[in-house]
């Protein structure tokens, strides 16, 4: 922990080629993942790390890796850990990147100080091991952060993907909901539905919950809120796609959906919406009736 030991580390690290070679060897022995990272890329990362590591050891006297002297090392490690999180390394493999530096360093310390007796070697080993352990812990932390960012981004993408508002007919919108409804999603669903109502001038919106796995009181409340908000905008809502178990659950929970028109299937809801707007779907009978009349097409 003295300038002396830092000097020794610097001396050792100056022999960059040697350390680098045995470090990389060490890593490919411990966790070789040629499927995830190329040899050249690994070599580049190792060389860069050694360089910044040496500069930090030169500048900082202590093993406090949170200090300002270590900022470049921390940044480099953050970058490496994040990229490994994305590439699919495990946290253990990521930490090994730093931990595997121990052996070459220790060997070198042993070789240079072997003559000075066991206590000097122990001191040096202790300094080096504390620094490397702390750095390895940092990689795990950064790895975790990288993973969390990944998950958050996927969550956002999922939210965007899962709230399409489709136009079924002039004045009729459909909102097929898929997945569990929480308050955040309800907010997004509500907003996109209302925006679409304004944009298309629709007067009826069909909320299809076929893809909603469970409906509890909270989900029902969210649905009712959406219906009420659409109502304030002057659009009527129909809830469709209620599966038998869900109907039973709603009744058992005592949720009151009597203020909303509900239909079992989207088709029913659509035909109700059409009739509200004064449209009707009719089989194209005229043609086939004429066919029968002419005797040309008798089996329809």
């Amino acid at each position, binding site marked *: 922990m003295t300038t002396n030991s830092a000097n020794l580390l610097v001396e050792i690290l100056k022999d960059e080629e040697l350390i680098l070679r045995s470090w990389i060897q060490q890593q490919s022995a411990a966790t070789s993942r040629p499927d995830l990272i190329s040899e050249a890329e690994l070599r580049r990362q190792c060389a860069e790390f050694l360089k910044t590591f040496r500069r930090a050891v030169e500048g900082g006297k202590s093993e406090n890796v949170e200090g300002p002297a270590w900022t470049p090392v921390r940044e480099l490690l953050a970058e490496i850990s994040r990229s490994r999180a994305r590439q699919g390394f495990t946290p253990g493999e990521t930490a090994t990147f730093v931990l595997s530096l121990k052996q070459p360093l220790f060997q070198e310390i042993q070789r240079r100080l072997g003559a000075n007796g066991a206590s000097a070697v122990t001191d040096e080993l202790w300094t080096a091991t504390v620094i490397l352990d702390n750095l390895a812990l940092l990689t795990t932390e950064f790895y975790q952060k990288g993973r969390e960012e990944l998950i958050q981004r996927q969550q956002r993408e999922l939210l965007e993907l899962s709230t399409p508002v489709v136009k079924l007919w002039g004045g009729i919108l459909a909102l097929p909901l898929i997945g569990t409804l929480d308050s955040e999603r309800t907010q997004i669903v509500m*907003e996109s539905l209302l*925006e679409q109502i304004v944009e298309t001038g629709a*007067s009826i919106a069909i909320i299809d919950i076929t893809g909603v796995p469970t409906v509890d009181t909270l989900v029902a409340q969210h649905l009712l809120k959406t219906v009420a908000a659409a109502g*304030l905008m*002057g659009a009527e809502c129909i809830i469709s796609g209620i599966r038998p178990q869900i109907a039973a659950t709603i009744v058992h929970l005592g949720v009151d959906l009597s203020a909303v028109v509900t239909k079992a299937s989207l088709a029913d809801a659509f035909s109700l919406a059409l009739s509200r707007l004064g449209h009707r779907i009719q089989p194209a009978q005229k043609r086939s009736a004429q066919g029968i009349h002419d005797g040309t097409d008798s089996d329809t």
Partner: protein
Amino acid sequence: MERIPILKLNDILLVSIQVDMHDQLAMTLQDDLTERIVQTGAHGVLVDISALDVVDSFIGRMLGNMALMSRVLDAETVVVGMRPAVAITLVELGLSLPGVRTALNVDQGMKLLRNGLARQTRGVRDGRYRR
């Protein structure tokens, strides 16, 4: 003093709120509206709030009251042009304006009112009860 204009269009009164509603203005509007309904014998009131960014609980309640008062004076009220953000806020506040009819825009609101009025007069002609 600032006032919100009330326009008469056949037997419908058109109220378009284009400025930020503060409480005094809302009260004045309420008074003016009831006065005009009695004066003109209008059977429909169309309140356009498309320019309102903010509707708080007071304004929400006032809209409901206006609808109730008009109903007593035999005029249907339709609130039109509510913005999505306003609708969400009102629902979150627990105000879903019961008893107020809504429509997306002035066009649809007019249609709604005319249909209602037509039904009423037809009902009278057929000897049925008026709503």
